């Protein structure tokens, strides 16, 4: 993906089109050099100081240098291959699950005859898939794995974080009744307000209906919580738990039968007979031109006026 950037990470790069990967690559090379120098200097000095108590200081300096250079090299390699390590880290759950499944399959196939292998596989796959509860749980947790990758794609593709291209740390995710909830720790360059304007695009990237974001911590603005919504729970009917605390064998209360009005239809009422209780004068409302008494029963009349 090419992207035109108004500012260059380094003064000497004055090209108008920058490939993000190249930028990250340069940053990685510089970081590796820095890591080599820092590690070599610190390890070399420490080793030399320690060695100086056993030998001549000049020999100790040579010893320190001999220890420092390989260790600095290790640090350089680690930083240099960091992008690869990072990708491995991102896919750790998938790699782990695939490895476990593959190893399990190999062990199973090696130690059981063919029909037994098939039966075991059918049980292991079929039972969780057949039970609705476990199937829903599996699907929900699978979405959690997917959403973490999709969020990372959002940050890498269209949410420009900072010049070194560091991505927010996407922490754990867990299923909610409406979708998934993902906790994210932002790196410098992003804020809650930056992300709020992009929630519609995040929802698209996550194959969801909507995405919400809020702070997960009062004390740290970098710690955020994404709520990915795929389903709507507000259309469900919610029962009250109070129904369960009452005794169903409650004796019904004796209620005196109230006076049942009889004039329940429009022709049943005469014009002057019906008046609202305790009403001193007809209210002045929008349909005030109509006589108040022209409505039917008192209840209907009241609701008409409101």
């Amino acid at each position, binding site marked *: 993906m090419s992207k035109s950037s108004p500012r260059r990470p380094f003064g000497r790069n004055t090209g108008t089109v920058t490939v993000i990967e190249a930028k990250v690559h340069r940053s990685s090379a510089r970081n590796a050099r820095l890591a080599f120098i820092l590690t070599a200097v610190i390890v070399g000095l420490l080793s030399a100081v320690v060695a100086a108590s056993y030998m001549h200081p000049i020999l100790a300096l040579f010893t320190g240098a001999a220890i420092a250079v390989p260790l600095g090299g290790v640090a350089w390699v680690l930083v240099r291959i960091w992008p690869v390590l990072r990708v491995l880290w991102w896919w750790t759950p998938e790699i782990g699950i695939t490895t476990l499944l593959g190893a399990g399959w190999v062990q199973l196939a090696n130690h059981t005859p063919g029909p037994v292998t098939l039966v075991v596989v059918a049980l292991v796959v079929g039972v969780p898939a057949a039970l609705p509860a476990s199937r829903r749980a599996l699907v929900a947790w699978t979405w959690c794995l997917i959403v973490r990758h999709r969020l990372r794609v959002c940050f890498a593709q269209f949410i420009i974080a900072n010049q070194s291209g560091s991505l927010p740390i996407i922490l754990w995710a867990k299923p*909610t*009744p*409406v979708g998934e*909830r993902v906790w994210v720790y932002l790196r410098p360059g992003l804020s809650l307000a930056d992300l709020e304007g992009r929630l519609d695009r995040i929802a698209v990237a996550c194959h969801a209906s909507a995405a919400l974001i809020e702070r997960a911590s009062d004390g740290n603005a970098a710690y955020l919580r994404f*709520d990915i*919504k795929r389903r*709507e*729970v*507000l*259309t*469900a*009917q*919610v*029962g*009250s*738990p*109070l*129904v369960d*605390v*009452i*005794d*169903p*064998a*409650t*004796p*019904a*209360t004796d*209620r005196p039968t109230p006076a049942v009005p009889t004039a329940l239809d429009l022709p049943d009422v005469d014009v002057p007979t019906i008046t*609202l*209780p*305790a*009403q*001193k*004068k007809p*209210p002045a*409302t929008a349909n005030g031109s109509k006589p108040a008494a022209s409505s039917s029963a*008192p*209840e209907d009349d*009241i*609701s008409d*006026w*409101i």
Partner: protein
Amino acid sequence: MTIATAPTAGIPVGPGLSMFDPIFVGIDEFGHPVYITLAYRNLLAGGEPGGGKSGLLNTIAAHAALSVDSRLVLLDGKLVELGQWEDCADAFIGPDITAALDVLKRLQLVMNNRYAWLRAHGRRKLTAADGLSVITVLVDEIAFYSATVGSKQEQEEFVALLRDLVARGRAAGIPVVAATQRPSFDIIPTSLRDLFGYRAAFRCTTPNSSNIVLGHGWAEQGYTATDIQPTNQGAAYLIAEGGTPRRIKVAYLSDSQIAGIADYAAWIRRPRPLPAQVPDLTRLDLGMAA
């Protein structure tokens, strides 16, 4: 609760709820339960007819009816929304503004006495340990009393008394829960509307109506009750603990469930109806306070 002769069916035991407990009102958009604590707050519900306001009122009434430290004062111009709670209510007022004014004056007197009592004890608000009941005032359709029935003077008196309850009743354990369809200034004065701490906006037809319920400015920030589906009764925006509107779905009680809870509440409460003799409402108990 002691009774003279134990009934053969067993002695009813209350569920031990308190009005100082959080009240379950429904679920939020993530499927998590939503609770509000009503003892020190007033709630205003608004929204178009059939939006679910009565569901919220009935859920709160159910909790209040099953609470041990609770009294219910119901004002319902429509008679049927809260009518099933009549047996467990200490006062149930139908479409009668004179009776409504009487009960509000009584409540005002109780409130004055409670504040004098609090002052005498050097305190500032009622707590659960005081053993005094929380008098929950539920008003369905404020507009009926404040703009429809009665003379202009009676309507103004109703609004003034209700405003006093909403303004001062909080710390005296007299929360007010009111519902109306559109609480615009011609229905209830803005000075009364803005005193309600909790707001629930059920479906509205215009962003302006939503703003009138929730408070000005929320529609511009994306919290508008116009985006609630008309078919989704009981969905609302609620401003309560937290400060920003949350989308919630209010718990629904069917008529038979309400009847069951009301019967049970009447069985365990045996409410003492208010004495028929109206006290001298002109007297002021300020001598005690002074």
